[in-house]
């Protein structure tokens, strides 16, 4: 879960993510069609560096799919937020719930106030 201070900042975060993903998707598709040669630098868990040169088609391995799933998930979330809040804001506890790393739900909550028993 990620915590946001209000709906606006969550929407801003998600929109930025969406933009970045869409740009990356476009670039990847372009490069895939050209089958260009790329250099890959990878920092392993133990801190070691591996550098290799490969054709981009060889490394695509599900990444494009992952991007698509993410784009779809963020889109549906943004749509639902818009349909509920209609550019309005909500301040309180705004949590973005991630399922297997993919944004899946928005949890809203609010600090409680003390009242008389009802």
């Amino acid at each position: 879960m990620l915590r946001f201070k209000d709906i606006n900042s969550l929407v801003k975060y998600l929109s930025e993510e969406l933009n970045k993903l869409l740009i990356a998707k476009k670039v990847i598709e372009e490069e895939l069609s050209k089958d260009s040669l790329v250099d890959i630098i990878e920092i392993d868990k133990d801190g070691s560096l591996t550098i290799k040169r490969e054709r981009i088609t060889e490394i695509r391995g599900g990444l494009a799919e992952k991007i698509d799933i993410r784009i779809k998930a963020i889109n549906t979330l943004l749509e639902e937020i818009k349909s509920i809040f209609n550019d309005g804001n909500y301040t309180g506890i705004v949590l973005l719930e991630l399922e297997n790393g993919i944004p899946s739900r928005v949890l809203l909550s609010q600090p409680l106030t003390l009242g008389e028993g009802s």
Partner: protein
Amino acid sequence: MIIPIPILIIAIMIGMIVLGLIRPPLTVIIPLLGIYAILMLIPYILPNFSINQYLGIKYIILPVIGLAVGYGISILASKYMNVDVRSLLGLKQGQRGIKRPSNISSKPKVEKRTEIKPEDLDRLINETINELKSGASTNETLGSWIEYYDGWTDAIISISRRFMDIKGIAESMNKEVPFLLRARQYESKAAMLGLTLKEESVFKKQKKTKVVEERLVVYVRPEEIANELMNDTQLISNYVNEFNNIVERLVHDNDISQYMGNSQVLVVYVDGGVPRKLIMINR
């Protein structure tokens, strides 16, 4: 009558349903049904001999229905829910035939086990540990995705910005957790004093509209998410640490920055959202 009549019928039905659930072989069902049929036919064979008004030909169908229902439930349960009712009831029918082969097949297993040599043991243990390690480390905190930048500087700025954002989020979560926990304690104390905690009106109003269907935007009470938030705070803190190491490396490692020059770069976030992979596009 000592036994009230409907109870007798209900007992017979339950008995037949249970029998059906167990799915006994026909050699058990047929004699039972036979005995029941004879019982039901008694008033017809001996007209003066009436045991019970429900012991009549009209009710001969009841146990058959009971049996069929039980049988049906049993089959459906094992087919669609993978529940073997027979083993649930503690009965393993037809086990005798199967038992022997299972005995035979279990023997070589025992032999196989003894085949593991002590020198292999170390290797096996290491393999298992590695497997467990990789299993534990592939958490999907933030998932994996790709971002594109025109140049290395842009990429570094964006990665650092993301790092700062997430760090900020982690910090605010860290602050929130004790507050939520306190709110929970507060509520239990208030309850003891005869007070309840009220939701603010906006929250209440919007909450009502959500029931319509499964929503992606959900209202929850703060104390409901306290535990989850606590776990996730830990998770995000670990993530921030890992991210921090990578950012340090990307910014200060001369090998990387020299190598990157000013080429276009795809930053691949892997391992639950850590930018470990950089793909440079050569033009």
